[in-house]
């Protein structure tokens, strides 16, 4: 292997590693706050890339219908609760908060000339469509079972993921898509060629990580989310509603997923079912951090990215096997160093 190949593989590994780091952070965050293992984190990534690709093709993306349907269901749920508690006066408020954004997007997508829209606006539209799906999934799937065991929540996650794969096939078709690159530029650093696209992905991913760090370390809402992760009872007693914490965690996860999809879209061809492998790799990274440590999970993600990149050069048929085998020594190490804590009931 010569130097050129080495730098190419390292760049590639760090770029996908940055994406995996984002996924791993989202998985750790959601697990800490809600005890949900978010299998569908990768589906946010795939759906966001496919949504952007559809918009770039000048068509209305199928995720819009998913958003409209989901929002309508959440709204119906809240209206039923309001009627039961004789709070009929709140019904207009529920209609407004749940349906205004989806309907606005529907109107926009129906009337805009999508083919000639500026690229940045398409990215914004993608974020606006995909991010609300996070809280919607939480409200519909997880919140009714918020007190259930980790196992039951995992089963719900697998069910949600299978449903999303089915819906993805229906909404986007079986074809793979790749979004337009942000930049074609590249430059030489010494003897190594650095791709502008790679640099952009790593840069934006790192920016997002720093933004998350600032949010969790310095804002009261971020601290409240962390507090919920540390002690759910204590969080309730200071007035942090479990539902708000759950919805916020899912909002952040969907935001991270949607951004990852936009970043990864130009690099990899994504299909309706690509989400699962992305989730799994983020999950391997999250496991390296014991599903608890953010820095270790992020570091693990870069390791996963690098191993995957070098494995695909030396033994491309085995690259997934090599990455997933990494879990075994990590689990052994974790089981030897940590004390088992009984799940609280």
């Amino acid at each position, binding site marked *: 292997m010569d130097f050129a190949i080495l730098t190419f593989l390292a760049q590639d590994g760090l770029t996908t590693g940055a994406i995996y780091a984002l996924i791993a952070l989202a998985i750790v965050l959601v697990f800490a706050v809600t005890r949900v293992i978010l299998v569908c984190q990768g589906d946010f990534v795939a759906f966001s890339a496919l949504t952007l690709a559809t918009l770039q093709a000048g068509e209305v993306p199928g995720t819009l219908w998913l958003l409209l349907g989901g929002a309508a269901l959440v709204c119906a749920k809240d209206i039923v609760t309001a009627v039961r508690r004789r709070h009929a006066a709140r019904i207009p408020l529920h209609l407004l908060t749940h349906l205004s954004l989806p309907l606005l997007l529907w109107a926009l997508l129906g009337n805009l000339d999508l083919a000639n829209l500026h690229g940045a606006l398409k990215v914004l539209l993608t974020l606006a469509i995909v991010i609300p799906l996070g809280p919607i999934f939480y409200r519909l799937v997880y919140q009714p079972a918020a007190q259930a065991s980790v196992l039951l929540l995992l089963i719900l996650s697998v069910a949600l993921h299978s449903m999303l794969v089915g819906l993805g096939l229906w909404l986007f078709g079986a074809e793979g898509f790749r979004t337009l690159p942000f930049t074609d530029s590249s430059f030489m650093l010494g003897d190594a060629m650095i791709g502008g696209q790679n640099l952009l992905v790593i840069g934006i991913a790192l920016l997002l990580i720093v933004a998350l760090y600032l949010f969790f370390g310095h804002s*009261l809402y971020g*601290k409240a989310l962390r507090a919920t992760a*540390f*002690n759910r009872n204590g969080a309730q007693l200071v007035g*942090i*509603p479990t539902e708000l914490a759950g919805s916020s965690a899912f909002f952040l996860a969907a935001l991270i997923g949607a951004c990852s999809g936009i970043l990864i879209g130009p690099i990899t061809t994504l299909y309706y079912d690509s989400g699962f492998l992305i989730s799994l790799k983020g999950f391997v990274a999250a496991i390296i951090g014991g599903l608890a440590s953010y820095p270790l999970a992020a570091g693990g993600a870069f390791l996963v990215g690098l191993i995957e990149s070098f494995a695909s050069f030396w033994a491309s048929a085995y690259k997934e096997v090599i990455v997933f085998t990494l879990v075994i020594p990590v689990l052994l190490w974790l089981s030897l160093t940590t004390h088992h804590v009984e799940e609280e009931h």
Partner: protein
Amino acid sequence: MSANNPLLNVERLSVCYGKVEAVRQVSLAIGEGQIVSVIGPNGAGKTTLLGALMGLLPAEGEVAYLGKTLQRHHGVAQRVGQGLNLVPESRELFSPMSVEDNLLLGAFSRHRQGHRDHGLTLAEVFDLFPRLKERRRQAAGTMSGGERQMLAMGRALMAKPKLLMLDEPSLGLAPRVIGEIFRIITELRATGVSILLVEQNARAALKCSDYGYVLENGEVALQGPAAELADDPKVIETYLGRKSAAPAPAAAALAG
């Protein structure tokens, strides 16, 4: 007595764990600016009673707070937002976070309501508990039992409660620290906070209270002004005669 216009009025409250009724038909009232204590043996339902008032447990019966009936679906967060706060026996602190972060999170509910005067409240809490100010950067989990109790109370005070419910604030603390906790409870009343105090340390609790209830087997066995309760022969025999918690057989005899 101000109980004619009580801050909290509880009528025939019952809480069930499955088929077991842990709290049965309990009625009690707390007037504004009062300290009311609930004493009783282990397992009498004191903690369950507080959990139900806080909205942590589903309950039957009527609870009126600030003159309005609290509904079943009024969750914990909603009650906290109305100035009803609980310091549980287990403290429930955010152990890995700093003392200051724990306190600031106590103001979460007010922050959501749009208040931004947490700096002022924090200074007041630090005045009340100078020890917390010294340790503001330290992780909550590394503090002693007494300091953790102070932090739990300080965190609840950051929400500017109208009614503060304290569950066994003296449990497991050194006598000197217990004295300080009760001194602070009395000081709090002077600032207009009403307090519902659940204690096994009946002597100290009745000493600082205005009114008292004796809870046994989930029911109110005795009640009256705290000074009268402290002179009641039955209470003296069961709860004040010894320093330790009441022996169970005597409690059963009283209830029957």
